[in-house]
């Protein structure tokens, strides 16, 4: 289920004006996602017959001028990544459509409703960096995404659409498999576990071949920028955060929904537009490694800068809404348990620390904690931060820390063995088993 980009504005502040849908245009205009429909809406992919360095540089400059940043969660400037790849050896291009977040459905939405935009972007980037092959990575527990990609690839090979050969790859659908180095590790033939990268700048490799990883949504945006140019791209969003992005709104809504929104739209508009009725409780922003935003701050624009000011980030485009009377502590405890379950198991602080934090949070939720629980929690959150090979424990720590702040009153009540009534209710934010049962049931 999708809807158009929001454009509600409030008098005074400069708000995004809205415009026609971009990423989901084909679907919204034709109701189809096949190649013919895609071509009728977007036209052919602007890939020249002979790709030269001038063209490649031009593409990178356009992407840079457009200000596109990675839509997979890191938010790194895409043009910088492309430039580095061009300067290095010819890499393998991996399209990351893994969507490890349980509360996210944007990747599968993109694959099902706009696969050719993603594949166009992949073809353009592959041509620019000289990639001999493209690996389109879809989680092995996502049959719709897999089917959509297979169909799209078949269509393109039949009609001979340009670009290097692309194949479907199906890594396991765990939380950390979508982490860049974990994905590359899996493509190299090993388990999908993140690698320790002592120096950030060093490219990921499989043997002697470097790998360039881009999120599916980022590539779809590249395909649009290549057609319409950077100025067009900047006509949506805000100057510091141009363009649109996909967000998945779930929780206290009628049903989880994926929306394409302009960056800079206030959180409240996004949430209202998804069918959640005011008043809202706190909102989880970014993903399960993101942070809570308190109800009073929901007019914060959805963009990296403003969100950072309230301790949040765009992340993987996940927005989880709580009802005002929900138990944020219980929700956080479940998510923490999930994050502990999803540890790759490689680093002691993550394995033991996240488990200990989750266990303490469950005790806190049930009102069974001891007097030192909260201080112990804070100490462990600090211990866990930054001591893993990847950012997984950092994200979990960030989420719990924000919970201790945003739900401070609840935390105090729970700590004094007076938990709210709501902790026994069903989970609001989607958490897979067994973490979903951890607060109420037995593990």
């Amino acid at each position: 289920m999708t809807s158009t980009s929001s454009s509600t504005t409030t008098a005074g502040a400069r708000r995004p004006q809205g415009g026609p849908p971009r990423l989901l245009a084909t679907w919204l205009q034709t109701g189809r996602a096949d190649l013919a429909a895609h071509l009728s809406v977007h036209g052919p992919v602007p890939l020249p017959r002979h790709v030269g360095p001038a063209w490649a540089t031009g593409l990178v400059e356009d992407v840079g001028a457009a200000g596109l940043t990675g839509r997979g969660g890191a938010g790194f400037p895409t043009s910088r990544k492309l430039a580095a790849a061009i300067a290095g050896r010819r890499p393998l291009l991996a399209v990351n459509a893994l969507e490890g977040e349980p509360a996210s459905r944007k990747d599968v939405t993109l694959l099902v409703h706009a696969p050719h935009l993603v594949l166009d972007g992949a073809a353009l980037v592959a041509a620019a960096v000289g990639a001999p092959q493209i690996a389109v990575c879809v989680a092995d527990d996502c049959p719709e995404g897999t089917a959509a990609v297979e169909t799209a690839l078949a269509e393109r090979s039949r009609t001979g659409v340009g670009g290097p050969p692309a194949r479907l790859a199906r890594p396991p659908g765990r939380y950390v498999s979508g982490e860049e180095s974990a994905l590359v590790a899996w493509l190299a033939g090993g388990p999908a576990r993140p690698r320790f990268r002592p120096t950030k700048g060093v490219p990921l490799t499989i043997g002697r071949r470097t790998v360039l990883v881009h999120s599916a949504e980022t590539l779809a945006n590249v395909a649009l920028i290549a057609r319409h140019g950077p100025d067009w791209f900047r006509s949506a969003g805000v100057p510091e955060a141009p363009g649109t992005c996909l967000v998945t709104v779930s929780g206290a809504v009628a049903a989880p929904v994926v929306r394409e929104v302009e960056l800079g739209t206030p959180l409240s508009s996004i949430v209202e537009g998804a069918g959640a009725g005011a008043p809202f409780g706190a909102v989880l922003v970014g993903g399960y490694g993101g942070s809570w935003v308190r109800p009073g701050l929901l007019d914060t624009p959805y963009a990296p800068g403003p969100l950072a000011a309230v301790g949040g980030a765009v992340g993987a485009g996940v927005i989880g809404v709580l009802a005002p009377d929900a138990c944020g502590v219980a929700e956080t405890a479940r998510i923490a348990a999930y994050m502990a379950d999803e540890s790759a198991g490689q680093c002691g602080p993550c394995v033991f620390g996240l488990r200990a934090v989750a266990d303490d949070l469950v005790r806190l939720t049930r009102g069974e904690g001891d007097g030192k629980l909260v201080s112990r929690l804070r100490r462990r959150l600090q211990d866990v931060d930054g001591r893993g090979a990847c950012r997984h424990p950092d994200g979990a720590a960030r989420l719990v820390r924000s919970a201790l702040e945003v739900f401070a009153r609840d935390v105090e009540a729970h700590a004094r063995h007076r938990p709210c009534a709501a902790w026994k209710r069903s989970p609001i934010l989607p958490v897979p088993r067994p973490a979903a049962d951890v607060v109420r049931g037995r593990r």
Partner: protein
Amino acid sequence: MPTDRPPTTLHLRVDPVACEAFGYCAELAPELVSLDEWGYPVVDDRPVVPQLDGVVWRAVKECPRRALFVEQRARSAW
């Protein structure tokens, strides 16, 4: 500047994947490494002072999993 400090600084770091909590680093370089409640090293990230060079290299050499290493960084302005 009167001092002739080198343009890079050395920092002790641990590879958390390789580390298996033997704890030799905390025994050999207690000035820089302490153990968390699960026995894993918490490494001081600040530049290593020259007096601790020997201690650092011994700790790096003795780690049974070769998890400890020394990283060179450009000296930050502050």
